[in-house]
């Protein structure tokens, strides 16, 4: 793999981490309205997957969707402005953290309804086939979402019609405050792929290179017209379900333990070993990211709060 690619992936993982850390801080200060779901600890999944996508590919997203949008190329300023609910946000402040869509990047929307985005991903994939182009759709969802009926209906239809979708389950082991073993008997959710006649793979979602490698195969497959697949990435949610959730349902020990799987540290270690990075590079990257975030936050905070004039706009064309 090219060094630039690796460094870009490293930059993006770190950026997602720092952006979400900052969001948590700002949220705690009461400056961000609504619900916030951060994906700290899970960064390898969106970055691994999106690094295998083309800019014109589609991405269907979940409530825990900051990382995916950024990894797909979302402009940090407009992204942050949307989190703040401001006019210059991607959705003019009508969406917020839970519903960001970036039409120009093929990010067809985060979804507040668990499983709600899965059927929609079929549609962009269908459009690719209908129009005869080779744009692929990646559909993200959590482990909890695999128990919704929409998961089942969508995977069956995608397999049947051989649609170019990669279904990516970000399995962080939790659905809100409920651990995986309380929501399904299965250990590996990727075996559900067999129910539809499509391939399913489970990978270490804390290893960005493994995620990328597997995603590349499955995306290439879809692009060639060989149909959909299910990619399960096992990872860990470090923080609560939403900002403000103190995770009383998890032992302090468990919370500490999962941090040992830090996908960023793991990747940094590798890059350091391979001499693609040295500690100073990391510092520089951190500094670059910090200034990007500072700029984005300043942009968001300066962006106007939407006024009543937009209230009735865009219900219909």
């Amino acid at each position, binding site marked *: 793999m090219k060094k630039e690619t690796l460094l870009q992936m490293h930059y993006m993982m770190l950026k997602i981490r720092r952006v979400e850390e900052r969001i948590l801080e700002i949220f705690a200060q009461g400056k961000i309205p609504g619900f916030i779901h951060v994906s700290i600890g899970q960064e390898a999944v969106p970055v691994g997957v999106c690094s295998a996508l083309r800019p014109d590919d589609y991405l*269907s997203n979940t409530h825990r969707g900051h990382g995916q949008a950024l990894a797909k190329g979302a402009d940090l300023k407009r992204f942050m402005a949307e989190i703040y609910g401001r006019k210059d*946000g*991607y*959705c*003019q*402040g*009508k*969406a917020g953290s839970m*519903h960001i*869509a*970036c*039409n120009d990047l093929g990010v*067809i*929307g985060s*979804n*507040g*309804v668990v499983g*709600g985005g*899965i*059927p*929609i*991903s*079929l*549609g*962009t*994939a*269908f*459009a690719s086939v*209908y*129009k005869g182009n080779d744009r692929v*759709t990646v559909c993200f969802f959590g482990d909890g979402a695999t128990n919704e*009926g*929409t998961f089942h*209906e*969508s995977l*069956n*239809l995608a397999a*049947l019609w051989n649609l170019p979708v990669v279904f990516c389950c970000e399995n962080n082991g939790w659905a809100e405050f409920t651990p995986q073993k309380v929501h399904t008997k299965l250990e590996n959710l990727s075996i559900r792929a067999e129910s539809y006649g499509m391939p399913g793979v489970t990978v270490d979602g804390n290893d960005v290179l493994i995620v990328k490698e597997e995603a590349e195969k499955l995306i290439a497959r879809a692009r060639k017209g060989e149909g959909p697949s299910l990619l399960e990435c096992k990872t860990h949610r470090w923080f609560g379900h939403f900002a403000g959730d103190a995770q009383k349902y998890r032992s302090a020990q468990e919370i500490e333990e999962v941090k040992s799987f830090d996908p960023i540290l793991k990747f940094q270690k590798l890059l350091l070993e391979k001499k693609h990075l040295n500690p100073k590079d990391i510092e520089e990257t951190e500094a670059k990211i910090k200034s990007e975030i500072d700029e984005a936050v300043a942009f968001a905070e300066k962006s106007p709060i939407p006024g009543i004039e937009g209230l009735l*706009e*865009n*219900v*219909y*064309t």
Partner: protein
Amino acid sequence: MKEVRYIRAITEALNEEMARDESVFVIGEDVAYPGGSFSATRGLLEEFGERRVKDTPISEAAIVGLALGAATQGLRPVVEIMFMDFLTVCMDQIVNQVAKTRYMFGGQYQVPLVIRTPCGGGLNAGPQHSQCLESWFAHVPGLKVVMPATPYDVKGLLKASIRDDNPVLFVENKALYGLKGEIPEEDYLVPIGKADVKKPGKDVTVVATSRMVHQSLEAARTLFEEGIEVEVIDLRTISPLDKETIFQSVEKTSRLVVAHEAVKTFGVGAEIAAMVAEEMIDCLDAPILRVGAPFTPVPFNLERFYLPNAEDVVRAVKKALAY
């Protein structure tokens, strides 16, 4: 002009719009090879091929979601949901996804999507195959709700719905599929959002929807013989409501009856009555009366007692006049 059945008027509209615009496609259970459970899509597969006429598994949520995703990319899906009662299995996709996509994403997308579905009784199809649920969807901003009663209107409105850049719930009526009526030979549209005075009259306004339009016209004929001149307005579109046509008529007649097949309580009649009671109460010379189904599920072999009919309209009109 030519005479066609309501169901064939639908087929014609689909045919013409598919021929006119390559981005239109049809999707649903049994719509392609079988030509549709009620035969609305008959012949489309032969004409337009498998790419544009799609049979699906029994997976309504996936179907509607697929249509939504495709619509955001400029396609114009026409979904068939076999019975209106089954909108309940894809309600999230319709209400939380399709209806809100444009607004919640700040206008980034257009959602030109039509969901065709038949409502209503008359076939003794029982409680899960006979409901009229249009008032639910009229309560959902972002959807348009259309409900035509005649072959002419069903064709013109379906064509207009397919050309509309917003999601349209297109409510057909099983009991009307066989109804014959005249339509022009040439291309025409019926605008969404315009009610139609199906019969002018000066004494009482009857605003009706779908099958009850015909029942109301029958009532009007009966009443005419008694010297009562009823104005029958076919609402045609439930959302957005055509206030103007209704208000003009009520201004003239001062008496209003609303007639629909849906359960009376919390039905479309409630909104119309409320609208009039809100904005033109002084014009009224009588209570606003509503004709609708009783507050029960649609019973199998008691359907004939359940369904509102022309007699109910006659009774309401007389009550309004007697006031």
